[in-house]
C-alpha cells in the first residue's frame, strides 16, 4: 500500500488538508519557511509546484509565483531537493506541467521523484487518454500518478480515470483556472456524487477553495481539500515572510477545525 493510500485509509472522519505552494517561491529559504508553516498549521500532505514558464491551468496568483521562482533560477532538481527535505515528515505530491516532465525524461523524472520520497505526481495538462505511459512509469517507481476530473468530464471519462487512478483523484471544483473565488460552484456536490458513484479511490477537491466555509462544504463530500492561491496571495501581500507564515499557520488551523 502506498503512503497516500495509507494516509487516506487512516484519516477516520477527517478530511485531509493539502496546502499547495510553488517550489522555490518566493525564494528557496522562504519557501522552506512556508512549508514549515504548512506543517504547523496542520497540513496532512504538501503539494509542491514545479515552476513552469507557461502554466495554462493557473490563474494570475499562481502564475506570478511560478514567475518569481523561475527568476530565482529554480529548476526541477531544486524542487526534488525541497521534496526530499520534507518527505520524511509528511507525504509530498508534486504538481508539474507535462513539458517539464517530458524535457527531463519521463523515466528519469519518475525515478528522481521516487528518490526524493515524492508520493504522487499531478500533471494538469496530461488528460487520462494521453497518460498511459506516464501512469506506468510512475507505478514502476512506486509513485502514485494522480489523475484529474473536472465538472465538464462526462461519466464515460470518469470511468476511464477511475480505472487508472491511484493515490487520490484530483477533482477540479469549477470550470476554470486556479484562483480564489467568492463561492463554490453550486454543482460541486452533484459532480462529486457522479465521481464517487464510480470509484472508491479518495477524492481531493481543489481550484477556488479559499475560505474555511468552502472547506466545510467540501469536507461533506470529499476526502481531501487543496488550497493554493489563497496561501500564495498571503505571501505576496504580507510585509514580511514571518508575518505571512503566521497568517498561513492561523488560516490553516481555522480550516483544519472545520475538516475534523
Amino acid at each position, binding site marked *: 500500500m502506498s503512503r497516500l493510500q495509507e494516509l487516506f485509509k487512516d484519516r477516520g472522519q477527517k478530511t485531509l488538508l493539502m496546502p499547495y505552494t510553488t517550489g522555490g517561491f518566493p525564494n528557496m529559504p522562504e519557501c522552506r519557511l512556508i512549508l514549515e508553516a504548512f506543517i504547523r498549521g496542520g497540513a496532512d500532505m504538501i503539494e509542491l509546484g514545479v515552476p513552469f514558464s507557461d502554466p495554462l491551468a493557473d490563474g494570475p496568483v499562481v502564475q506570478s509565483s511560478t514567475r518569481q521562482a523561475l527568476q530565482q533560477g529554480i529548476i526541477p532538481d531544486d524542487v526534488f531537493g525541497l521534496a526530499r527535505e520534507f518527505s520524511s515528515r509528511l507525504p509530498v505530491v508534486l504538481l508539474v506541467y507535462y513539458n517539464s516532465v*517530458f524535457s527531463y525524461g519521463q523515466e528519469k523524472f519518475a525515478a528522481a521523484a521516487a528518490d526524493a520520497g515524492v508520493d504522487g505526481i499531478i500533471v494538469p*495538462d496530461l488528460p487520462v487518454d494521453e497518460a498511459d505511459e506516464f501512469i506506468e512509469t510512475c507505478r514502476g517507481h512506486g509513485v502514485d500518478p494522480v489523475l484529474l476530473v473536472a465538472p465538464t468530464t462526462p461519466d464515460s471519462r470518469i470511468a476511464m480515470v477511475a480505472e487508472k487512478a491511484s493515490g487520490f483523484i484530483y477533482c477540479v471544483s469549477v470550470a476554470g483556472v486556479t484562483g480564489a473565488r467568492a463561492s463554490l460552484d453550486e454543482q460541486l456536490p452533484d459532480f462529486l456524487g457522479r465521481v464517487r458513484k464510480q470509484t472508491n479511490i479518495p477524492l481531493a477537491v481543489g481550484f477556488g477553495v479559499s475560505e474555511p466555509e468552502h472547506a466545510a462544504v467540501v469536507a461533506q463530500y470529499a476526502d481531501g481539500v487543496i488550497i493554493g492561491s489563497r496561501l500564495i496571495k498571503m505571501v505576496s501581500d504580507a510585509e514580511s515572510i514571518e508575518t505571512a507564515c503566521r497568517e498561513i499557520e492561523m488560516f490553516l488551523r481555522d480550516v483544519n477545525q472545520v475538516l475534523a
Partner: protein
Amino acid sequence: MTVTSRFGPYGGRYVPETVIPALDELTEAYDRLKDDRDFKDELAALLKSFVGRPTPLYQAGRLQEMTGCRARIYLKREDLCHTGAHKINNTVGQLLLARDMGKNRVIAETGAGQHGVATATAAALFGIPCAIYMGERDIERQELNVVRMKLLGAEVIPVSSGSRTLKDAMNEAIRDWVTNVRDTYYVIGSVAGPAPYPAIVRDFQSVIGCEAREQIMETEGRLPTHIVACVGGGSNALGLMEPFLAEEEIDFTGIEAAGEGLDSGRHGASIGRGRQGVLHGSLSYVLQDPHGQILEAHSISAGLDYPGVGPEHSWLHDLGKVRYDSVTDSEALEAFTLLSEAEGIIPALESAHAVAFVARQADLYPDDGLIIINLSGRGDKDVHQAARALGIME
C-alpha cells in the same frame, strides 16, 4: 473518417481535462459536418462571395528578372483575400462550425492581428460576440489591426504576461476557454493547439493549394517544381502544400524566422533550433531551455514570432518531406522592398520571408523550374514598422 490527432509522434491533446470534452464535441461536429453537402456548399459560397476566392496565381515576371532567377515565379495571392491575409479562410470555416455547434461566443488569440481581424470579421458576419487576446507588445506594433478589430465589434483583451506576444495571448485564450468552455468556441488561428485543431485548420486552409493546383495546371499544364511558404505556426504553408504533398518530385520549403540570426538566440526557428516539447496542447518542435522552460521567440514579423510550430510540420520535417530553412529580419525587409518595387505588391513581413528565400537562392533554380510562393498576406499592417526599420520615416 475520424480527424487525425497524431502526426507520427506529434500532436495530441495536452490540455486540462476541463476542455477535453469540448475537444471531443468539436471532433464529433467536424467529423459530421466536413463532408456534409450543405456545410460544404455554404462554406464554398462564403469563400467566393465574402472572402473573394479564388485568389489569383500571379506570374511575377519582374521579380524573376530582378532576382536573376531562371525559373518562373508565381505568387499565390492570399494577400487579396478579404481582410488581407489567408487567415480568413480558416475563420469563416470555424465560425460555421461554432454556429452549427450552437456556441454563443467565440474567442481567439492573435499575434500580428491578422487572425484576430479575420476572427472578428467572421464573428461579425455571423453576429456572434467575439473576444480577441493579444499581447501588449503586439498591440504596440500592430495598432492598425487593433483598431480594425474594435471597429468590427470585437473586444480586444491585452495580455501582459510573459513576452507579451502570441505565445502569451494563446495561454490567456486557453485560460478563458477553460473557464467558459460550455458556451464558448475557441477559434485557433494556426495548425497548432490540441487535436483536432491542427487538422481542422489545415483542411480549411487547403483551399489555397487546391486552387493553386488547378491554376498552375491551367496556365502551365504541369505541376510546380518548388513550393515555398513562411512558417510561424504554419497554416499558410500547410494550406498551400497539403494538396501537393503526395507529389514526390516537388521540392517543398518552409521558411522560419531567423530574426537577428540563428546564433543570436533571437529568432523564431522552432524546427531549426528547437527540440521536441509540449506547448499549447500539442507535442511538436519547441524553442525551450535545457529545463523545458519555453523561450521567447523573436521576429520582425509578429506572425512568425512564436516559439512553437504546428505538429504536422514537425512530422513533415522528420520525414524529410518538407525542408525547413530560415530568413533573417534584414533579409525579409529587403524582400519587402524588392517585391514592392518589382511588382507593385507590398507583402506582409511574414510573406516577405518566403520571397526573401527565393531571392537568396535565385540562381540555384533550373531553367524549367516553376516556383509557387505563398504570398500569405498584404503589408499594410507593416508599413510603419518597415518604414522605421528602413529609415523612410523617423
